[in-house]
C-alpha cells in the first residue's frame, strides 16, 4: 500500500500540492484524475521520489520514499513520465534491458534476459526489438518505455498520462495491457489520466484532485456520477450507463 501523509509542494507562494493524505490500495488500477494544474503529475512525481516534497511523507509498503536507498525502491516501484526526452541512441532491446539495471547493474544474467524477452513479448515488440527508438512512431516508443518499466518487475507501477500521444486503438491497447499487468502479474498500477471515460472503464479506484488537494476518492461507482464530476471539473457532465459501464458525456 502507498500511504501519503500531508504531502505538500509549493512554488513560491503557490501551493501546487497542498497537504495530500491518501492511502492507495494495493493491487488493481488506481487512476488520478482532475483538471489541468490540479497537481496530479507533481503528486505522482513526489510519490516516486523524482521531486522532493516540501512537507509530508510517503511510504511504499512501509518504506519511506525519502529515506530508503534508491536502489531498494527501484525494485519496488517504477515510474514512467509523459515526456521521455533523451539524447541516448538506443534500440528497443537496449532500452528494455535497462529495466534490469536495479538488479544487475548492467551485467545481465540469464534470468535478466528471460525477463527482457518476456517484457518485449508482452508489449508485442518482438519484431521491433532491434530498431532504434528514433525510428519508431510515438505509440511504439511509448510501448517500449512501458516494456522497460514492466521489465523492472516492481510491485508498483506509476504512469503519468500513459495515453498521451496515443490514438484510440493504441490507448485502448495500453489500458488493456495495464489491466492484464494488474490481474495476471499482480501489479499495482497508479496512473494519471485525463480521459475520464478510460478512467471509468478500467479503474478499480479513482482519486480526483483539484487545486492541489484531494477533491474526492472512491470506487468507480461512487466517483463517476454527474454531481461528483461536475463539481471537480466545474462544468456540466452527464453520465450514462452503456452496457454496464458508466460513460460521461461533456462535449457541449
Amino acid at each position, binding site marked *: 500500500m502507498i500511504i501519503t501523509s500531508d504531502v505538500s509542494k509549493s512554488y513560491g507562494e503557490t501551493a501546487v500540492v497542498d497537504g495530500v493524505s491518501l492511502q492507495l490500495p494495493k493491487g488493481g488500477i488506481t487512476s488520478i484524475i482532475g483538471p489541468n494544474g490540479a497537481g496530479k503529475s507533481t503528486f505522482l512525481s513526489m510519490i516516486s521520489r523524482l521531486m522532493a516534497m516540501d512537507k509530508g511523507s510517503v511510504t511504499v509498503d512501509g518504506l519511506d520514499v525519502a529515506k530508503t536507498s534508491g536502489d531498494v525502491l527501484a525494485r519496488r516501484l517504477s515510474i514512467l513520465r509523459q515526456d521521455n526526452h533523451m539524447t541516448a541512441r538506443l534500440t528497443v532491446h*537496449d532500452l528494455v534491458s535497462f529495466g534490469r539495471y536495479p538488479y544487475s547493474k548492467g551485467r545481465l544474467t540469464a534470468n535478466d534476459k528471460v525477463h527482457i524477452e518476456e517484457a518485449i513479448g508482452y508489449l508485442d515488440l518482438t519484431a521491433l526489438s532491434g530498431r532504434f527508438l528514433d525510428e519508431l512512431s510515438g505509440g511504439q516508443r511509448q510501448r517500449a518505455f512501458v516494456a522497460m518499466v514492466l521489465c523492472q518487475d516492481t510491485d508498483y507501477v506509476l504512469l503519468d498520462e500513459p495515453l498521451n500521444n496515443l490514438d484510440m486503438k493504441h490507448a485502448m491497447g495500453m489500458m488493456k495491457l495495464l489491466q492484464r499487468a494488474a490481474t495476471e502479474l499482480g501489479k499495482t498500477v497508479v496512473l494519471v489520466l485525463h480521459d475520464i471515460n478510460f478512467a471509468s472503464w478500467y479503474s478499480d479506484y479513482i482519486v480526483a484532485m483539484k487545486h492541489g488537494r484531494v477533491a474526492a476518492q472512491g470506487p468507480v461507482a461512487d466517483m463517476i456520477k454527474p454531481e461528483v464530476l461536475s463539481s471537480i471539473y466545474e462544468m456540466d457532465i452527464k453520465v450514462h450507463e452503456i452496457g454496464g459501464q458508466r460513460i460521461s458525456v461533456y462535449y457541449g
Partner: protein
Amino acid sequence: MQGELVMEGEKKRLSRPALVLVALSLVAVISIALFMTLGAKGSWSFVLSFRGKKLLSLVLVAYAVAVSTVLFQTVTNNRILTPSIMGFDALYVLIKTGVVFFFGVSALVTIDSQTQFVVELAVMVGFSFLLFRWLFLGEERSLHLLVLVGIIFGILFRSLSQLMQRMLDPGAFNVLQDTLFASFATTDPTLLGIAVVIVAITSLVGWRLMHTYDVLSLGRAQAINLGVDYKRTVAIILVLVAVLVSVSTALVGPVTFFGLLVATLAHSLIGNSKHLYVLPAAILLGIIALVGGQTLLERVFAFDTALSIIIEFLGGLVFIVLVLRRSAR
C-alpha cells in the same frame, strides 16, 4: 555488460562499434609511430625522450578532453554543451590571472609549478562544483537556460581575467600570458608527472562508476527510477570533469571546441550511446586529432602552432551545425 548481447547476436562478424574501435586504434597507433619517428635526426635516445614527453602531454590532453566532454554531455543530457562552452576553462584562466593579480608575478615564478597546479586544481574543483551543483542538481532546467548561463559565465570569467590582465604591469602580463597560451607544440613538461597521477586517479574513480553512465544518459527521471543515487553520482562526475579540464588546460591552455568535435564524432561513428564504446572512441579520436594533426603540421607542412586554430575551426563548425540542426527540429 550490455555490449555482450550485441556480440552474441553477431558472432560471425564484428559489430559496428567494434570495427570502428579497431580502425581508430590502428590510425592512432600509426599517428603515434609517425609522430615519434618522422624526420628524426641525431641521437635516437634524445629524440625519443624529447618527443616522448610531448607525446605524453598530447595523449593526456586528448584523454582528458574526450572523457570530460563525453561525461559532461551524459550528465547534462545534451549533446551541445561541453565543459569549455560552459566556461570551465575560462574559470581556470581567471584563477591563474587572479593569482598573479593578487599575489604578484613572483607567486607564479617562485612557487614551483606542481604546488601551484595542485592549489589551482583545488580552487577550480571547489568553485566549479558549487556552480554546477547549483545548475544541474536542483530542479530540472531548460537547455536554453543552461546555454545562456554558461555563455554568460564564460564571458564574465573572460572579462574579469582581461580586466585584471590590463591592470597588470607589462612584465607580469608577459609571464602570465606565457602560461596561458593555448599551444599543442609547447606543452608544459614540468606538470607531466603530476598530471599522469591525477588522470590515473580520476580514471579509477570514473571506471568504478562506469555502469551508471548509460543509465544517466536516459535522463534524470529514468536514472532515479532505475535506482541511481542521482545527486551523489552526478556530483562525483562533475568533480571528475572539473579535474580533467584543469589538467588539460594546465598542459596546453584553453581549447573551446575540441571536446565537442571528438565527442560528436565518437557518437556518430559508434552509432549507439553505450559508453563502453563511445568513451574509447572519443579518446582515440582525440589522440588522432592531436598527435596525427601535430605530426602533419610539424613534419609535412612545416607549420608550427596552427593546430589549435584548425581544431577550433572544425569544432566551431560542428557546434554551429549542431545548433542549427537542433533549431530546425
